């Protein structure tokens, strides 16, 4: 078997094994295993309606996964996607309100740029603190999540609150004509398109440019990168900024395609689920797409699992968890197989 097939075969085997283990769990919970599998299929991929649910759930996850995947290529473990989503969404809403009289294209572009800049600055700061102050990036990005959420709640409950939003404090609504629509005739919003485009662009950037090469070198060995004269600090900050910009864009999509305003609903856990997807996709921008669709599908099927089989919502988290652990474990297996092959050759 050619070695190149391993990166595909191993996750697929892990996935199959995860479904078997999950079946055991479901049986313990007292549900009919085959019927639960059928419900997952029906709820996630069984019809065009279900596919739309799955792809809509996958949309923000692709963007937030990039927030962990890009810094990971630099050797950093950043988990600040949630903060970047929340502040990106807030920046998008404020820009949308400032541009309320502008044309839709101007307003939407402005909102997207503001969100990307905000998310980018937040995660860029994480990278900068790591490089120049040696602050652990995992801890700082985690803490920035709490700061981001606190800033959002403070502003929407306080100074930026639309007084008409009595029981659900929110900012004012952006112009209705500035709302992001759906893709064609579907009910999937443009966030999915943004996610796809971002994954592809970043893949090209990382595979085909000298910047991507520099990132891989910094991620591989910082000292070697420094010795060969690469601008290590700039690469780290830029790489982090791109990840943050992707998560910020997810926040903009939430505002422009779903809520029309910023409120605490922006804090929905997309940032945290993105971490899982980035690791499951082994930080490969293109692999993020199928992983996000898979996890989005599990999210979309959660309802049917609850309604048809009386299983709690946590069941879908169990499935996600099993998949995540097995894919990570399979990486170790893959590494061992690869090294054995290497020795044999």
């Amino acid at each position, binding site marked *: 078997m050619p070695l190149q097939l391993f990166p595909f075969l191993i996750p697929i085997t892990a996935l199959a094994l995860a479904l078997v283990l999950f079946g055991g769990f479901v049986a313990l919970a*007292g549900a009919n295993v085959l019927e639960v599998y059928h419900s997952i299929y*029906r*709820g996630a991929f069984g019809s065009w*309606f*279900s596919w739309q*649910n799955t792809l*809509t*759930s996958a949309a923000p996850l692709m963007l937030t996964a990039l927030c962990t995947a890009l810094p990971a290529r630099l050797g950093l473990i950043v988990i600040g996607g949630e903060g970047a989503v929340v502040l990106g969404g807030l920046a998008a809403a404020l820009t949308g309100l400032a541009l309320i009289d502008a044309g839709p294209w101007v307003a939407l572009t402005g909102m997207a740029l503001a969100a990307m800049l905000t998310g980018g600055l937040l995660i860029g700061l994480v990278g900068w603190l790591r490089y120049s102050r040696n602050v652990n990036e995992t801890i700082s990005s985690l803490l920035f999540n709490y700061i981001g959420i*606190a800033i959002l*709640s403070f502003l929407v*409950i*306080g100074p930026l609150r639309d007084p008409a939003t*009595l*029981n*659900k*404090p929110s900012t004012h609504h952006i112009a209705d004509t500035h709302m992001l629509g759906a893709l064609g005739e579907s*009910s999937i*919003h443009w966030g999915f398109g943004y996610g796809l485009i971002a994954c592809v662009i970043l893949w090209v950037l990382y595979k085909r440019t000298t910047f991507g090469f520099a990132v891989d070198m910094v991620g591989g060995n910082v000292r070697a990168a420094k010795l060969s004269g690469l601008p290590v600090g700039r690469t780290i900050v830029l790489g982090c900024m791109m990840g943050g910009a992707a998560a910020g864009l997810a926040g903009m999509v*939430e505002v422009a*395609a*779903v*809520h*029309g305003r910023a*409120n*605490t*609903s922006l804090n*929905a*856990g997309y940032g945290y689920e993105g971490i899982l997807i980035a690791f499951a996709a082994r930080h490969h921008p293109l692999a993020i797409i199928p992983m996000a669709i898979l996890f989005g599908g599990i*999210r*979309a099927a*959660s*309802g*049917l699992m*609850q*309604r048809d089989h*009386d299983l*709690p*919502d*946590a069941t879908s988290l169990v499935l996600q968890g099993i998949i995540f652990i097995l894919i990570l474990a399979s990486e170790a297996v893959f590494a061992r197989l690869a090294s054995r092959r290497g020795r044999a050759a």
Partner: protein
Amino acid sequence: MSHSKHFKYSTARRKVLKGLAAVGLSTALGGLGMKNALAASKKVTMGFIYVGPRDDYGYNQAHFEGKSAISKQSWIKAIDQENVPENISVQRAMESMIRLDGAQIIFPTSFGYFDPHILRIAPRYPDVTFLHCGGLYDASKHPKNVGSYFGYIDEAVYVSGIAAGHMSKTGKLGYIAAIPIPQVLRNINNFTMAARSVNPDIIVQVVFTGGWSNPVKEAESANSLIDQGADVLTCHVDSPKVVVETAERRGIYSCGYHADQSKLAPKGFLTGAEWNWSKIYLEYATMISNGSKIPNLIRGGFKEGLVKSSPYGAAVSAEAKAHADKVRAQFVKGDFVVYKGPINDNTGKEVIPKGKEYSQTDIWLESMDWLVEGVVGSAKG
């Protein structure tokens, strides 16, 4: 987790429950029981959506209990989904219940589900009824197949306040609340006025946690209020579990909210304000099954049976019980007015002058942005 398993009955137990429910139904609704038995061939499918877990000992559990009560009827198929956030997920959950399960009536039970989510999905399914908990239906703006229902739970909070006022020895009560919105402020004001009607020296200290489900902050706030001398705690957050348990552990009294928490605090639990959703859910199902018109706006308190008090805990004195029962009886009769002037806010400003009354249904009360005299804390949060 134990709670989510409650609806898995053995066949024998299910039959017993069905029988019990049928008795309950015929007593509650008189002749309607017969009609429903006839309609058994046509099942009514009802979908419930909760923002948190079914077994949170609070807001979501109250709705889940309502759903569980009606799903014992053979002519109702009740389905539900928990932990659905207030974003596009709820739009998908509603559509999924309609398209994959054939739901005819949807109950998205969290306030934030309404705008923009229900308003976006409802027009696409004109044959489905969407009934939202907590919102204000406006016939001039909202689709015809949308409605809202809510209870004046502040009446039950007032009754809790009476019990708390009697039982407090330090004269300091603690209130842990999520965010300063009108509903929350109204509950705090009712609790405070009730307690001060027993003992005018009582003060109520308020802490806002900033979110509906923030267990760590809730525990911290509870401990800090107790450290400052509070000897009765109550709360307005999605799950009162942490507050009630903390009060019990520290050996002080607590009043519950949303659902029955008496089991969590066998020693110090006084009483609590609860929703009584099963009644209205059964009425809605009956309307659908008869094909009668569903009202777009339903509200009510003790009188209409939408709210109730938790059973008194062991510690409550006979005097406190008698007083609380008396006030509740007045609410049931519908002649108790809480917002009767003169009422000052806690900055000393007069908000309701002498001689002026705001009855329960007054819309002015729904935009409350002040805290009554006796509350320590700011209405700004």
